[in-house]
């Protein structure tokens, strides 16, 4: 099974590539020196000071709320949009994809300034304006994840559900959604990530007092990123990782049980 081993090595390499910078960041979170380029010995103090900074704590709240909400809204709109687009004729389909790509394509600063100029005409800048902006640039990612999934979907199962008395909504929820779930998940993740990462658009569309981690970090660049940021990122990373492991283990337990029951 040479192939299998090579495959594993390959996956490990890819994961290594993706996680190497993360390891660096985690290392930096334990760096006693305030400079990222100097190793000043091991410390945990950034993890402590992190919780003393009300600015960071409130920014993380805003960031997560914003990311969750915008990703969720984008998923809902994107999912319905994908279904609609999927049912369209070729020409309409292309037109829709055309417009879907625009937010991806505009340089962030162009989108940010254009949205800001537009928002000031009818809504106060604040959390909601950032939310709208984030949803706007998130939707394309959701659509681009769900559409390919729709293309390979097995429509017969959906028909069978309808036949058994399911309304289209119910069949949609019970049959199509599980089928599309990986796509929705991928879209949600991407949207969530984009939202967490965005600086420029957030900056131009946010109101006073609204801060996300990104806007904090960008504000700090000149003086050097505060080590608390590394600590925060690492903490976030570990929390998600632990959650992932827990979910995974409990899911595996359940699976084991049902596997046993199957035979």
């Amino acid at each position, binding site marked *: 099974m040479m192939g299998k081993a090579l495959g594993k090595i390959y996956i490990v390499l890819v994961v290594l590539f993706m996680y190497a910078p993360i390891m660096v960041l985690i290392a930096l979170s334990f760096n006693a020196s305030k400079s990222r380029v100097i190793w000043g010995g091991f410390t945990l103090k950034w993890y402590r000071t992190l919780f003393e900074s009300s600015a960071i704590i409130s920014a993380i709240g805003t960031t997560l709320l914003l990311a969750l909400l915008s990703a969720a809204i984008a998923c809902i709109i994107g999912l319905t949009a994908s279904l609609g687009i999927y049912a369209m004729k070729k020409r309409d389909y292309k037109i829709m994809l055309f417009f879907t790509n625009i937010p991806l394509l505009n340089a962030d600063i162009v989108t940010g300034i254009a949205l800001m100029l537009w928002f000031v005409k009818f809504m106060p800048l604040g959390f909601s304006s950032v939310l709208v902006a984030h949803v706007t640039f998130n939707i394309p990612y959701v659509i681009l994840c769900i559409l390919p999934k729709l293309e390979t979907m*097995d429509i*017969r*199962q959906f*028909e069978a559900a309808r036949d058994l*008395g399911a309304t*289209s909504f*119910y069949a949609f929820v019970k049959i199509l959604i599980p089928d599309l779930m990986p796509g929705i998940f991928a879209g949600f993740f991407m949207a969530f990530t984009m939202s967490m990462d965005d600086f420029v658009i957030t900056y131009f569309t946010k109101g006073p007092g609204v801060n996300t981690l990104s806007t904090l970090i960008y504000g700090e660049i000149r003086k050097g990123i505060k080590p608390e940021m590394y600590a925060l990122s690492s903490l976030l990373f570990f929390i998600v990782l632990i959650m992932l492991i827990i979910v995974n283990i409990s899911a595996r337990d359940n699976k084991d049980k*049902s596997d046993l029951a*199957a035979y």
Partner: protein
Amino acid sequence: MSKKLIELKNISKSFGSNLVLDELDLYIRENEFVTLLGPSGCGKTTILRIIGGFETPDIGSVYFDGVDITKLSPNERQLNTVFQKYALFTHMTVAENIAFGLRLKKKSDSYIKDKIKYALDLVNLPGYEDRYPDSLSGGQQQRIAIARAIVNEPKVLLLDEPLGALDLKLRQEMQYELIRLKNELGITFIYVTHDQEEALTMSDTIVVMNQGYIQQIGTPESIYNEPTNAFVADFIGESNIIDGIMVRDRLVNIGGLDFECVDEGFGKNEPVDVVIRPEDVELGSPEGGHTTGTVTSIIFKGVHYEIQVESAIGINFMVQTTQNFPVGSFVGINVIPDNFQIMHKPQSEDEEILNIEDIPLKE
């Protein structure tokens, strides 16, 4: 007679430029077992899909109990379907598949549990509750599809080749169970099969189709014994279809030899199609035969042998008999008058199809 439960009126349907159903009329009575029979691609599945609500006819309407349901969506129709390709929910276990419709109807858990057990017993797969469809063999999947549909006790059950992947024994068992369901629960069956014996055994009414047109509607026996045209005769069971000339009432000339028959009302010397079922051709000693022939091939078919006989009158007969006549043996050939089916010849090659609308539908 019971009332008409489902009526298709003037249904046409095409896919692109491909006309699949053409002005089709059909009704199904309550608690009737109707089978659609016809060659591959003739539109059987399409009819089921139109009744089920998965396809909208281009023209025409579907009535259920007198109400136009053409525009109704599938879940609003009181019928369930067993799909030709099963369409099981791959992300659900067998039990969840079967429970799907019941949960929608908000049945109690204990009711659902009972029903799952009952249905799995019925289809001979007890203990398969927690398997996933992917891990089942073809025939097992098909049976789950049946179980999933019948637990809902629909008014009408549409079945698209539901036993196609099952072996004879199981098929017979399932046939028996389906008939029992029909009688016990008063379900109306609309059935598609390519197995003529199954059609003949189970149906109250058989609808023979070809290329989107209905060729004949009738009871199994009338379809088998009195096919309205050569297509039906040829399609239902094996047949010898021979050119003949009607000498006069009750006398037909085949290959220069006159045979007695029971048909009347043909024009004098009218060219006709003569249909003789292979099991109706009797082979015996050369002396006793109306004509004679030589056996050119014999195939063992289990219940009987299938024998090809090259007859003295130049016609090749296919014969089914339980006796074994070795290749080369010289035999006598007899057909009793009752067993000749005489049919008008179609005017043109295509007439069978083109003029089919004129065939009176059985009331």
